[in-house]
Structure formats: C-alpha cells, structure tokens
C-alpha cells in the first residue's frame, strides 16, 4: 500500500513535533541542573557549560546515597519476592490439578479489584501496630506478592508445551525441581519483562514509603526528592540535579529492557 507523499511528510513532521514535546521536560531538567543562577534568571533553555556544582549541593542538602541504597534494597527485594511467590503460585495454577483451583484463582484475581489506595490506611495501621515503621520490612512486605505477577507468569507457563512437563515427570523429576531447573529458565523472556516492570514500579512508589517512614535514614529516593524540594523553596537547581539522579537509573533500566518489557506486558493483554 502506498501512502501519498504529503502524508509521509506530515508523518515525519508530527513525529518530530510530538517527540520534542514529550522529551522537553527531561531535557530541561538536565539543563537546569547544569545552570548557574544568572542563566536561571535569564530564562535560558540551554546551559552555557557543564558543571556538577548543583549535584554536589543536592548531595549536601539531603543524604541521597542513603536514599539510593534504601530504594535499591527495597525495589530489589520486592522484585525478587514477587517473582518467587508469583512463580510458585503461577506454577500451581498452570501446571497442576487440584480441588478449588478455580475458586482460588478468582480469589487471587479479586485482589486486583481492591485498589491499593483504598486499603492503604488499614495497611498503615497494621504496620504501626506491629511496631515496624521505619524498617525495610514495612516498605517491602505489603508489596511482596502481586496478582499481576502471578497472572503474568501463569500465562507464560501455559504457553509451555505440556509434553515437557510430562516427560520430566516420567523421568522422576519432582515438581519443585522442574519449576526451578526447567520451568523458570523456559519463561525467561517474559520473566525479564516482569522483573523490569516490577522494579521500575517499586522504584517509583510514593505514598506507601511516605506513610511508613519518617526517619531520614529510611527514606527512599522519591520521598527524598520531595524533602529536597521542601528544603530548597527558592533555588530549583539542586532539586533538578536530585531529580536527574533518581531519573537516570529508571531511564537506563527502561531503555535497556524496553523491548522485552513491551512484548511481555502486551502479550498477556487483550488481543486486538
């Protein structure tokens, strides 16, 4: 099918315009993080030189290394936990027959209908009750399992040919051994997608860490950025530098894992 030439030109023009509009906030954030005060007041878009001055300021104003360490630990453990708990449940739902399977599967799906924001107060009260505010456990536990992860991995297990499982069973392979030596390696592509997605999502959590932590030592990067913004009401440059610091890891993870994540996320969704 041949497009008319003016359609083609219009397509290029539109793509370029939209790309610029969408990327401008990120570029501008980087630019401001490099500027001196004069350039800010002059309303410049591009900085005249590159400097790390504002980054040093940001790290002086708030303990960003601690925030980054906390976020890495929390996001890493959440991702690991969701994959482990999810793989076990997904394997049972996809590969095993047992009584009440359907009911249990619906119960699990029902958790997707309960929005996290609607139960966040009760969850906060539980954590406060247990006396574990300001701990990694508080940040991690409520997010250690997710129906999305179970559902996603179940879909992946379902695509495996039944014969593999049967053959392994005849060879005397136990279910658990099959799961971690054969099952999980076979679903690696969609697992990769899930890992990237969950990691990004937990790196970006805001409300929950805000509620269960109030000591500076336990804050995550997102809350830390909010603190920095509160501390620096007049000078935006260190705040932009802080924003760049927390953006760079997620942008890198996104660009590296983009292809996998996109195919993995859309594979399970409605065909259309």
């Amino acid at each position, binding site marked *: 099918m041949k497009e008319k030439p003016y359609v083609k030109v219009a397509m290029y023009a539109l793509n370029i315009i939209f790309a610029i509009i969408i990327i401008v*906030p990120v570029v*501008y*954030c980087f630019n401001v993080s490099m500027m001196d005060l004069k350039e800010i007041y002059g309303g410049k878009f591009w900085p005249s030189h590159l400097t790390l001055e504002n980054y040093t300021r940001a790290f002086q104003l708030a303990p960003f290394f601690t925030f980054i360490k906390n976020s890495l630990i929390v996001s890493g453990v959440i991702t690991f936990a969701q994959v482990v708990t999810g793989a076990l*449940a997904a394997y049972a739902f996809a590969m095993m027959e047992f009584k009440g399977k359907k009911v249990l599967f619906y119960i699990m799906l029902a*958790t997707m209908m309960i929005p996290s924001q*609607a139960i966040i107060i009760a969850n906060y009260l539980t954590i406060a009750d247990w006396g574990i505010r300001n701990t990694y456990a508080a940040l991690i536990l409520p997010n250690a399992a997710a129906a999305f992860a179970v559902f996603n991995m179940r879909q992946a297990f379902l695509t495996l040919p039944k014969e593999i499982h049967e053959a392994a069973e005849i060879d005397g392979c136990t279910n658990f051994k099959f799961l971690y030596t054969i099952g999980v390696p076979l679903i690696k592509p969609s697992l990769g997608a899930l890992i990237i997605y969950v990691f990004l999502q937990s790196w*970006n959590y805001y*409300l929950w860490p805000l509620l269960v932590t109030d000591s500076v030592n336990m804050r995550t990067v997102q809350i830390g950025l909010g603190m920095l913004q509160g501390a620096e009401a007049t000078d935006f440059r260190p705040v932009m530098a802080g924003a760049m610091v927390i953006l760079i890891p997620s942008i890198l993870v996104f660009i590296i894992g983009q292809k996998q994540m996109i195919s993995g996320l859309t594979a399970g969704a409605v065909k259309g």
Partner: protein
Amino acid sequence: MKSKKSFFRTVEPYLYLVPVMILFILFVFWPFVKTIQLSFARTTPLGQVAQYVGLDNYTNIFTDGTFLNSLVTTLKFSVMRVILSIVIGFILAIISTEKIRAKGFFRTVYALPMAISAAAASVVFMFIFHSSLGILNKVLGTHIGWLTDKKYALIAVTIVSVWMAIGMNFIYLTAAIQSVPSELYESVALDGANFFQKHRHVTIPSISPTLFFLLIINVINSVQAYAEFKMMTQGGPAESTNVIVYEIYQEAFINSRFGVACSESVILFVILIILTALQFRLEKKVTY
C-alpha cells in the same frame, strides 16, 4: 509408601499457593475488612476503634462539602486525564507505525515517560510552571501562576499526569495496531479510502478491545492519583485540586480521623467497582 506419596501430591499444589495467599490475606483482604469496620467507627488517634457510630461517618462526609468537592474534582481530573492520555497515545501509535525512518527512536521517546516517577515529573513541572522563572510563562509571555491560581491548578496537574500516562497507552495501542491484519488495510485502500477514513473504518474498530481495556485501566489509575497532587499543590489552592485520595490522606494523617478516612476509602472502592461493572456491561452491548 505409596499413600504417603499421594498424600503429598494432593497437598503439594496448595503449598505452592501458601506464600501468596498469606500475603494477600494480611495485606489485601484483612485491611479491606478492617477498612469497612473502621468506616463505622470513631477512632483513637492511633487508629483503634473508640466507639461504633453506625453510619455517622458516611452522613458526615456527604453533608460536609469537602468530600463532595473532592469527588467532583476527581471526576473532572479523571475525565480529562483518561480522554487526553488515550487520544494522544492513539495519535502517537498511529504516526509511529507508519513507514518512517527512526521508528525505534520515536517509540522509545513516546514510551519513556512511563519510567519517570511522579515525584521527579512533579518537581520538573513545578519549575516549568513557575510563575516568574518558569519556561512556560516565558514562552507564552504570560505571568500565570499555573499551580497557585484556582483557575489553572487542576489543568496544570492534569497535564503532568497525562504526560506520565501516555507511555503505557502508547505501548498497548501500538501492539494492537500492529496486530490488525494488513488485508483489511489493503481492501480499504482499494476502495480509495484516505488516511483518516482508513483509521476510522479499520484501525479503531479493530483495536476496540484494547481501547476498552485501556479505558478501565486509565479510569482506575486516574481515580487513584495522588503523588502529583501531594507534590505540586497539596490539594490547593482553595481545595481546587483536592482529589479523593489526597482528601483521604488528609483526613487520616493530618486530621487523625481514621474512621472518616476509611468511610471515604469505602466510597472510593464502591466507585471503582461501579465503573468497572458499567464498563463490562457496556462491552457486552457493543459488538466489535
């Protein structure tokens, strides 16, 4: 020996479900029950039941204008955000599936905001919107307090929220458009359809299940938006951006009225259930 093995075989599947189910019970089902319970109670500042008050919390929130205002604000915000983010995501998906060079680059850019946290996006846009130093006012030659003027605050936050939501819609719509059979396009091309007719008569009907799916997801996400409001406007000015989750947060953690906050949470849950159910009915009526 044999019976022992078969006993294990019967129990084994349930063992695999134990970790997930324990976590769901502790952090989804139990808090859900507790939320409903607390919504009928007056609580101590520590969140324990002081006294059951029947429907008092509910009658209070529906007679006090604050909560009603937050419902209306959430509605306005959600309608704008859902429509804009799906429409823009759709346009981006269309223009980047055309036969053009550097497709991969454009796609990466369009999906990128997905990776950006609400906190980071908020601080960047707070500066862009800044009334005297912000680049937006410089470009427009205006001195509008985008985040401090009642007229503009909600729209400004919506723009940020839309920017963050476009990426996901773009990804799903691109995948859907790519799976439309090319014969359909060839046959309308033979009929002499132009660019717009082609997409109206082939693309949109073919991808409507995905559009429907995105509609649900986007509504659910919009109604639960919080971080951008907390960061950029704290519900102000004059409660003009006091969306429902921010209102719940304020009642619980600023006013320590956990019972009231829980009754608002129950309403939030009911709204989401109704919306989802409505959309499922709608889907059954419309044939694709």
